[in-house]
Each structure stands twice: as C-alpha cells, then as structure tokens.
C-alpha cells in the first residue's frame, strides 16, 4: 500500500501505434508523487505521447495507464473530465486563449468548474497571477505578452484548480536565459510550496540537472535509463551517453535511413 501511494502515475506494458508507426512498445514508467520528474528523450521519441496517455487523450493499444488508484484508459468521458480537473497541463507554447485577457484565461477553469462568487474568483486569480509574478499583466491580451510571460500565465492557468499533478511540456524551448531562470524557479517553487507532483517533458539536459529529483530517458520506444540526473550523467550506456553529452553521432544515427550515397548518385547518372 505504501508503495502504491508514493507512485502518482504509472504506465504498465503500454504499446501504442499512431499512424501505422509504433511509438511505444512494452513501455513501463513510474512517476513518484510530490517530486519533480523529468521525462527526456530525443525529438519524436514519444515524450508527448506519454503526456497524452496520462491525460487520457490517447488510449494505449495494449497495457494499463494509472493515475493514483484510477485506471485512465478505462474511463468514460465524464470521469475523465473529473480526473482532468486534478491535472494541470502547460502546453508547449502556453496555448492561451487569444480572445481573453490574462485574467480571464486564468479565471476560465474556475468559472467553468466551480460555483464560486465572482469576487472570490477575482481573489484566487490575482493570487495565481502573483505567484507567477504577472499580476500587473492581468488586463493584457496574450498578443501583448512575450513568449516567457505567456508560459507563466499558462502556468497560472494550469494551477488555477490546485491540481495534484502538473505536466510541463517543453517548458524551456525557445526561452532567453532570464526567462529560463524564472521558469526553473517557478517549477521548483510550485513543487516545494504545494507538494505538487511535477512532470517536466524536455530535451534540455542541463536544465534537468538543475531542476529534477528524478529523470528518465525515452528512446527507441522504451525507457533506456532512469535515476537521478547525476546517475544518468555518470551512465556508461552508449545511448544515454550520446543523449546526455549531445554527441551528433552514436547509437542514434545522424543520417536518416537511406540508400548508400554512391549507389544513389550512380543510379541518377544511369537515369540521365
């Protein structure tokens, strides 16, 4: 029992195919509760698929997806909706609603899912905006915000209903060093202050080292390594080494699978 209570999310023997391609195969992952876990891997390895499985947007062809004691892949629409209120998701570019102000963006989940009075909603929203340091930007529209600010507003929106789990999908992509520092601190603060289970999906190895308690690397349709960032950095596995060190060639080849170059050039000459 103690074992299951400390695991917030688990995927068991999951296989999923999308568009004829197998994304994950016999995939096993356990994410501990109340910690910051990084899910890493090269682009296209299926990191975002893990997020979509955990939120029930995708269903596995085979295997089980659990959040706490709930089996996600068996839920109907209504219970899935109830589950999602306990999950905050920060999508890659924030995905703020462009026709609403920052304030209304953060207020939307509260207005939709609670029956709180407007004055109480106002106080809650201002608190969330204060938390991300953008209370002053409450009346601005997303078009008037920088990329980093948009993501902070989106973080406030994801936190609006005080979820138990927060997913961050590529929270560092395309941020300047200052915004990046702010984002790192924010994720740590949210985790520290509220004990929220945080899952950071990223390929930024250096940031993970500064942030995560726990990390895992997805490649080749499965988890190739798990552990603390330090353990991963010290790994002798060639695939892990290539990813952690950022080497251009290794077990993950630089070249997309193709015919031999000489052969193709010869063919072209023969054609002409």
């Amino acid at each position: 029992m103690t074992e299951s209570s400390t695991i917030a999310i688990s995927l068991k023997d999951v296989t999923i195919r999308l568009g004829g391609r197998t994304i994950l195969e016999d995939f096993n992952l356990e994410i501990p509760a109340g910690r910051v876990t990084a899910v890493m891997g090269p682009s296209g390895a299926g990191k975002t698929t893990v997020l979509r499985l955990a939120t029930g947007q995708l269903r596995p062809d085979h295997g089980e997806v659990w959040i706490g004691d709930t089996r996600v892949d068996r839920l109907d629409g209504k219970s899935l909706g109830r589950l999602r209120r306990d999950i905050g998701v920060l999508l890659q570019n924030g995905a703020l609603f462009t026709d609403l102000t920052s304030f209304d963006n953060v207020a939307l989940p509260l207005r939709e899912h609670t029956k709180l009075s407007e004055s109480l909603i106002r106080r809650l929203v201002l608190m969330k905006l204060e938390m991300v340091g953008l209370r002053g930007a409450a009346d601005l529209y997303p078009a008037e915000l920088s990329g980093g600010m948009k993501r902070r507003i989106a973080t406030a929106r994801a936190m609006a209903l005080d979820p138990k789990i927060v997913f961050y999908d590529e929270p560092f992509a395309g941020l300047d060093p200052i915004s990046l520092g702010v984002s790192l601190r924010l994720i740590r603060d949210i985790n520290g202050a509220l004990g929220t289970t945080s899952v950071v999906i990223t390929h930024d190895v250096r940031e993970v080292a500064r942030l995560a308690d726990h990390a895992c690397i997805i490649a080749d349709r499965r988890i190739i390594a798990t552990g603390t960032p330090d353990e991963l950095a010290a790994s002798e596995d060639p695939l892990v080494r290539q990813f952690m060190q950022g080497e251009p060639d290794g077990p993950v080849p630089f070249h997309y699978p193709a015919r031999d170059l000489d052969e193709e050039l010869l063919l072209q000459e023969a054609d002409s």
Partner: protein
Amino acid sequence: MSTAAPRTALTAPVRELGRAVLFLLTAFSRMRFGRRQFAEILRQVYFAGVRSLVIIVISGFFVGLVLTLQTYDTLTRFGAADAVSTVLALSLFRELGPVLAALLFAGRAGTSITAEIGLMRATEQLDALDLMAIDPMERIVQPRLLAGLIALPALVLIFNVTAIVGGVFFAVFLMGSDPITFWSNMQSSVELVRDFGGGLLKAVCFGFVAAWLAVWFGWSARPTSEGVALATTQTVIATAIAVLILDFILSAFML
C-alpha cells in the same frame, strides 16, 4: 491499384461529408444551455453579424440601386415603369437578399470563423480546453453555429432594407417616380408569408449551412499555416456551392 485510385477519388468527398455530418450531430448532442452559453452566443453574433454589417449595408444599397436602374430602363420601354418596385421587392425578398447576403457572409464571417478555429487547433487552444475538462464542442463550436443561425437572417433583413432604400433613392429621387405608387405597388404584390417569410426561411437555412461549413473546415483543418489557408478557401467555395444548390431546392419546394 488502378481500380482503387478512382474509387477513393469518388468516396473521399462522400466520406468528408459523412464526417461533417457526424461532427454536426456530435455538436448538437452535447448542446447545453446556460447563462454563460447565451453570453457566448451573443459575443459570436457580434463577431459574425456586427462585423459583417458594413459590407452588407454597402452591398445592399448598390444592389438595390443597380437592380432598379436596370429594371426601370427595361420597364419604361413597355410603359410599365410603375412595376419597378414590384420587381425590386420580389427579386430581393425571394432570391437576391438571402443568396447575396449568404455569399457575403461566407466571405466575411465564414472565413474568419474557419481561420479562428484552425488557428486554435494549430496553437493547441482546443487541446488546452480539452485538458481543462472543458468541451470544445460546447465552448467553441455550438455558439458559432447558433450565432450563424441568428446573424444571417438579421443581416438579410438589413440587406433588404438598404436595397429598398437604394431602389427608392434611384426611382423616386433620381427618376422622379411617385413614392406612393412605388410603395403601394410593392405592397400589393408581395405576400407576407410566401415571399417575405419564404425568404427569411431561406436565410435561416443558409445561415446554418454557412456556419456549419465554416466551423467544420476550421475544425478539420491541418494545424499548419497552409492547412488553415486551404481551409479558409474551402469554406468560401463550399458555402457558395451549398447555398446556390440549397437555394434551388428551397425555391422548388416553395413554388
């Protein structure tokens, strides 16, 4: 393979239509009304209706003007210039008002609905709603469908009034026709239910089809800039064709 290719070319549009119908049924099956939903519908009436007002008023005025000019010229040869208001009112109420307003609506409001929803998909706003346990069908699709249903008939009425104003301007102020004859001829030849009501029924149908196609093409657009651009073009083409075909069918039923 040679037999499979023409078969898919034939079945692809039918499948697309089937998907669009299923989409519509889903949207209606999840219909929910609340105070907030009404506020959202009103907002969408603003975006679809009020923002099309300028183009509708200007086009309406000039359509009325040119229609009167042409028929006045022809009817004078038969000494029947008095019938100009009859021709104007009947052609406006029964055909030109609903059809032209629907085509302008597709160009102005339909495209912006498609582009808006297509971009919402591209920027993951629809995903974000879904993840917040807010149904995008209820939140995004339904208000726009219902707003089209309300906004187009309203625009057709305004179009008709401005077109008649254009006709009065030409016939009465420029040509010096008798305003009393103008109005009384119009009144005695236009039937409230058959001509005027029939035109309004057409407007409701066109508004619904225009909003449906606009929402559908936005919803099913590939989430890239080319995808959204293509979907916007498709909205205009599909709405124009659908409105003209539907116009023929409805006219045939009404006569």
